[in-house]
């Protein structure tokens, strides 16, 4: 008797009052974050600054390969889960390397940043490393007919340093950078 009544009251408090109160407070204090940190352009949602998007157009910076659904499926997050010595992983990386080198006109002895050829854990990683962005500058300059220097400056402006100066890694948010590209004129 006590067991079931206890479970019932606990469920009421922890399963309804707690999450609903948190939702209320979250909307009151941080409405933008609570609803997904969405980015608007011309009054329309074009994405979330936290969720990566699939980019294949040479005129845009490309993000990381993704194992979420068909790629960047934000309703099916996940990684590849391929082991470190798995042949399939090594072959896939080799294929991706060839593509990255060809798209960006790199020679075979130039090393490519790992994040451009490996899947993230979530499959929705919104970031790439600054090196991975810089490597793509000449391609984008060519595709858009804009001087390389201008694109490079844009990348530099979009490098976000470590949080509070020491946490995490320096990153570039791909969606934000591409929005800035579109805004260039």
């Amino acid at each position, binding site marked *: 008797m006590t067991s079931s009544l206890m479970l019932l009251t606990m469920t009421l408090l922890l399963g309804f009052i707690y999450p609903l109160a948190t939702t209320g407070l979250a909307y009151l204090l941080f409405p933008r974050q609570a609803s997904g940190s969405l980015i608007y352009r011309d009054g329309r949602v074009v994405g979330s600054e936290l969720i990566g998007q699939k980019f294949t157009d040479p005129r845009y910076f490309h993000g990381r390969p993704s194992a979420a659904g068909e790629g960047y499926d934000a309703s099916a997050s996940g990684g590849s889960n391929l082991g470190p010595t798995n042949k399939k992983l090594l072959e896939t990386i080799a294929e991706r390397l060839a593509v990255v080198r060809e798209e960006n006109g790199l020679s075979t002895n130039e090393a490519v940043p790992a994040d451009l050829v490996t899947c993230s*854990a979530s499959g929705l990683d919104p970031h790439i490393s600054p090196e991975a962005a810089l490597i793509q500058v000449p391609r984008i300059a060519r595709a858009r007919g804009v001087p390389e220097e201008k694109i490079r400056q844009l990348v530099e402006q979009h490098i976000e340093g470590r949080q509070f100066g020491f946490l995490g890694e320096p990153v570039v948010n791909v969606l934000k950078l591409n929005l800035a590209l579109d805004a260039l004129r």
Partner: protein
Amino acid sequence: MSFDLLQMGSYLAVLLLLAVPLGYYMARVFSGERTLLDPILKRLERAFYRVARVDVTKEMGWREYALSLLVFSFLGMLTVYLIQRLQGILPFNPEHFGAVRPDLAFNTAVSFVTNTNWQAYAGERTMSYFTQMAALTVQNFLSAATGIAVALALTRGFTRRETGFLGNFWVDITRTTLWVLLPLSLILALVLVSQGVIQNLSPYLKITTLEGKEQILAMGPVASQEAIKLLGTNGGGFFNANSAHPYENPTPFTNLLEMLAIQIIPAALPITFGRLVGDRRQGLVILAAMFLLFVLGLTIVYASEYYGNPLIKALGVSSPTTMEGKEVRFGLAQSSLFATITTAVACGAVNSMHDSFTPFAGLILLLQMMVGEVVFGGAGAGLFGMLVFVLLTVFIVGLMVGRTPEYLGKKIEAREMKMVTLAVLIPGAAILLGSAVAAVTKIGTFSLSNPGPHGLSEILYAFSSGAANNGSAFAGLNSNTPFYNITLGIAMLVGRFGVILPVLAVAGSLAAKKTIPPGPGTFQTTTPFSFFCSL
């Protein structure tokens, strides 16, 4: 690399700094002393007891304590199971998810009630908001509170003398929930939202990307569940990608907070223990032993990841080469740290995919779970697990010098040792039997995604994770099959209650004993020598 060391070092410093006050606070809560939150919570607590008809003054012997715990856990399992089966007709289901398959619902129910939170399902594709809140979030709280209650009961076994009573299970879980878990969760949830973790009840959002493709953003009440998922060392993610998902863990700062949230209660409990048994050093010795083993594990994991994957490097990839299954914003340091914490603490949340870790790092993660997760360990479960090992040590050392072994003034005799041995061996047996069956049957090996020896590691990891109530995975193993759902479910039950019951029995028989004053021949459990022996 220097930034990496700075991050890991500062994390450990902050952890210890916060663990001490929390440990003292919990000691006050559990011994019924006054705290700051009393004006609000006292009233709520009394209301709880009135509704649930709890007689606060009633003390329970170990059998009654264990029975209450078992009945409560079983009812919890039944509720979680039924909510999943009925979610199609329940509210808060904007994506119209249907009933969860019976074997998966069973696995999930067991998993959350045993504080394992093995995830055989993909949250954003399977569970309605109702299920996430009323079933999963609730058990995140209650399974943690139950673990802490058992640790408390064992502590009372040492502090009480010549009584059969261990306290009141209902009071223990109520106070743990109201004074410790709930306030910490509420604060953490709001800080997480401020950094970008979502918290809403909206339907999934369909958007058009910059390149004109459709993308569906999964939504939900994430922050409220994220907070207790970590604080309660549960680990079952709202989303499939768990704490790697940017909506669960958007920034390096949230990552730091989430790591702290996982480890803070397990690190504070030894301090609470020392305080409750009236000998602070006893708690510090346990904490120091845990800490040393932890730093050792972390060093190996990080070094192995930093050294990288020579096979990938050979293809012409620049360092760090081990970014498969990791997020750029976390990098190697925050990923290695998180992985070491989550396997040491029995949490099972992940911010990177362990299956893709370098072999040596994967080995350490596996090892940490196999030793029963006493290196901090789950909420409460870590402390009582470590105490079991301490008793074992004291007994062996006692035999070597030919004295009746004692710990904290209690003689350790045959009956206690039998129970301790059971508690140590039962999870191991579950890992061994489960993995053996899975490895030699077609139905077991069918689910592997990586061939060869790594495939065996996936199976071994799954059963270790289940029996040790961890819940993290070498997720390449497709475990959402009736075979794995049921066998892993059983492993989780055995690993949880096969330890809790003997521990409560030990607590009961210790409480009934006299406390003897330490004599000249007593083995001092706070000396460096005994510290070394426990290790």
